[in-house]
């Protein structure tokens, strides 16, 4: 692919430089070809070519195709694909226009020109416009692999028909059509690869979260090979697991066997990729804009740091005696791009949302938070998907958000969230009563004064809505009255970031609206 793009762009540069430095030679070559092609003109073929040109070179046709593609991408909420499509279209239109001015090639000479044309000839604006539209549509709407490949062949056939018609009619030179095809195909390919890479934002028509990577095919094979080489484990099976409760990584359950012939067992793994680093950056930027510097909002810079940090938090919590999975190691899938952290799979454990929650479980869940408080850490993502129950014991998973020496506010939020999760499986009064065995009334009052809005994980909020009981209100009624803790933090940085984000968004909107006639 890269070689193809390089060759195509090299050819384009050669065409441009050739026209600039050896214009007469190109003119003569183009004229010879034009004479040869127009030499076969016949009545019916000319009518056919004129019809093809009228249909496919028309701005109305291109506009309808582009609008249709944009509407379809919007319906599937493929915003990155929409952006990539818009960037491709605007870039091709802009480059074609600028090249026409720079190279300033007249229409074919030595032959009678049939049909309408406008402006300089290099590169062919109608061919480029149709090509970028069809190629962008294929990339934005067709799944990678055979459907997209076939779509590109169809696109190629359609633009070839238009190009041939325009050559036959003497509307474009051969080099104009070649340059247009290069621009029309390479710019969307590059644009989509940069803005909506298929590995990270695949076009699928199955319901899947953007954060979850496809672990079949080449990636699956790479995972198996890397786990074998780096951990000495033979991977027999890879299954995505718990996708609904996970947005920042791709959680996997691996069936593995020791290389020395040990029995099969299951391990848990989390696959991190650059897309997760980007998502983390956007997530923290969004939080900064919406809430200010609520906590440490410094984003991670690399995938390697992601897995290093999770490995550290697992080791730290285990050292502190918290029931978290044992980490087995980090596996490098692609250097600096994709890493897998492998850890213990809690065999026989059930997610707390589906487990029986008795007094032992309630006490253990509360003890877990007490333990975190005493160890000076906060989990920061306590929700049903991250709490497992086995033999009456509560086990904690997904420690990626753990913070060392958190603010009292954050520790209070952990308490409120675990109480809400436990109350969802029992009732507020009972959980409150059990909590008083390990926490003071003031602790609980502060917890529910702090746990509002964004402080409560989305899954907990959804479960509360589904449950219907006002559990937060009930806890607040049981605990001593406490003024709510404001989570808005104002700073110069927050204002600057918010204004910059607003300005960037406004600029994009203004430019896209301003270029709407170019796009359509």
């Amino acid at each position, binding site marked *: 692919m890269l070689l193809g793009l390089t060759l195509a762009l090299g050819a384009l540069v050669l065409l441009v430089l050739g026209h600039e430095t050896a214009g007469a030679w190109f003119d003569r070559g183009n004229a010879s070809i034009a004479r040869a092609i127009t030499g076969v003109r016949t009545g019916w073929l000319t009518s056919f070519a004129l019809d093809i040109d009228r249909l496919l070179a028309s701005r109305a046709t291109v506009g309808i195709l582009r609008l249709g593609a944009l509407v379809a991408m919007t319906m599937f909420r493929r915003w990155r694909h929409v952006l990539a499509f818009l960037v491709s279209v605007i870039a091709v239109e802009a480059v074609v226009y600028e090249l026409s*001015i720079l190279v300033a090639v007249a229409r074919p000479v030595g032959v009678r020109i049939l049909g309408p044309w406008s402006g300089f000839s290099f590169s062919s604006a109608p061919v480029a416009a149709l090509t970028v539209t069809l190629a962008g549509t294929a990339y934005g709407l067709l799944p990678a692999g055979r459907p997209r490949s076939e779509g590109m062949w169809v696109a190629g056939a359609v633009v070839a028909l238009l190009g041939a018609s325009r050559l036959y009619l003497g509307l474009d030179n051969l080099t104009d059509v070649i340059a247009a095809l290069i621009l029309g195909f390479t710019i969307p390919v590059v644009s989509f690869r940069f803005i909506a890479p298929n590995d990270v934002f695949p076009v699928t028509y199955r319901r899947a979260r953007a954060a979850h990577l496809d672990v079949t095919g080449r990636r699956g094979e790479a995972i198996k090979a890397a786990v074998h080489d780096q951990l000495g484990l033979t991977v027999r099976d890879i299954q995505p697991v718990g996708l609904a409760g996970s947005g920042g990584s791709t959680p996997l359950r691996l069936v593995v066997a020791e290389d020395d012939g040990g029995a099969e067992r299951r391990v848990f793994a989390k696959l991190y990729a650059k897309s997760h680093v980007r998502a983390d*950056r956007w997530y923290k930027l969004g939080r900064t804009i919406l809430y200010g510097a609520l906590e440490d909002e410094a984003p991670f810079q690399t995938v390697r740091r992601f897995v290093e940090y999770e490995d550290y938090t697992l080791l730290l919590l285990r050292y502190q005696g918290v029931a978290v999975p044992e980490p087995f190691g980090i596996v490098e899938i692609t250097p600096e791009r994709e890493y897998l952290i492998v850890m213990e799979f809690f065999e026989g454990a059930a997610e707390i949302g589906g487990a029986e929650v008795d007094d032992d479980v309630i006490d253990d869940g509360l003890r877990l938070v007490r333990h975190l408080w005493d160890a000076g850490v906060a989990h920061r993502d306590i929700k049903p998907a991250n709490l497992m129950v086995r033999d009456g014991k509560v086990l904690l998973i997904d420690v990626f958000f753990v913070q060392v020496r958190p603010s009292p506010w954050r520790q209070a939020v952990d308490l409120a969230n675990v109480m809400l999760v436990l109350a969802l499986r029992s009732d507020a009064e009972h959980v409150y009563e059990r909590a008083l065995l390990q926490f003071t009334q003031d602790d609980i009052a502060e917890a529910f004064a702090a746990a509002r809005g964004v402080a409560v994980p989305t899954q907990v909020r959804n479960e509360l809505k589904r449950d219907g009981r006002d559990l937060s209100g009930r806890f607040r009624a049981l605990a001593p009255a406490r003024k709510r803790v404001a989570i808005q933090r104002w700073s110069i940085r927050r204002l600057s970031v918010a204004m910059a984000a607003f300005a960037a968004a406004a600029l994009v909107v203004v430019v896209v609206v301003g270029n709407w006639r170019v796009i359509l």
Partner: protein
Amino acid sequence: MRSGWPVWVISVGVVLGSASCGASHYAQVSCEGVHRQSIFILAAEAVPSATYIPCIEPMPAGWSYAGSDVRSGSVRFWLDSDRVGARAIEVTMTASCDLTGSSESPLPNPPSGMRLFEQSATEGASDVTVRHYMFPGGCVTTRYSFTRSDARSMFDEADRLLGFTPRSIYVDGLQNDEGLTLCGAGAPPCPG
């Protein structure tokens, strides 16, 4: 490494860079050094029957070339004036033009076969002057957004801005330089 930023920089750059697409910035159709200017070849292809191609003489202070549009069947360019405003003069060449309401005016030292027809008209609330330069195979219409009575000195300046070059210059030039035929008036018949 923040790998995401180039994407956004490139995207925004491309989007911003495209903002100029709406205007036409072809090379000026200048009467000076006309031989082998691509814009003239293009203009000759646009109206192949025209035996003359309009051009702009050196402009006095206050006038500026503003844009052009060359397409099959017509050549159009326009000039701005710091006194009269945008598109003070618009020049359009077509194969023929409608002379209804125009009267012939004398043209000092006219190129061979060229005649001038002039009319005053009203567009919206303003008076404009429309001149038609008729010649074999073509017609150049100039539309001044002012009249002689409004601004006599401007009118005289504008009068001197429009020039003509014979198509044969380009036909011969292309033939002699590259052995190619610029189809249309003054050239041998083209195939197709």
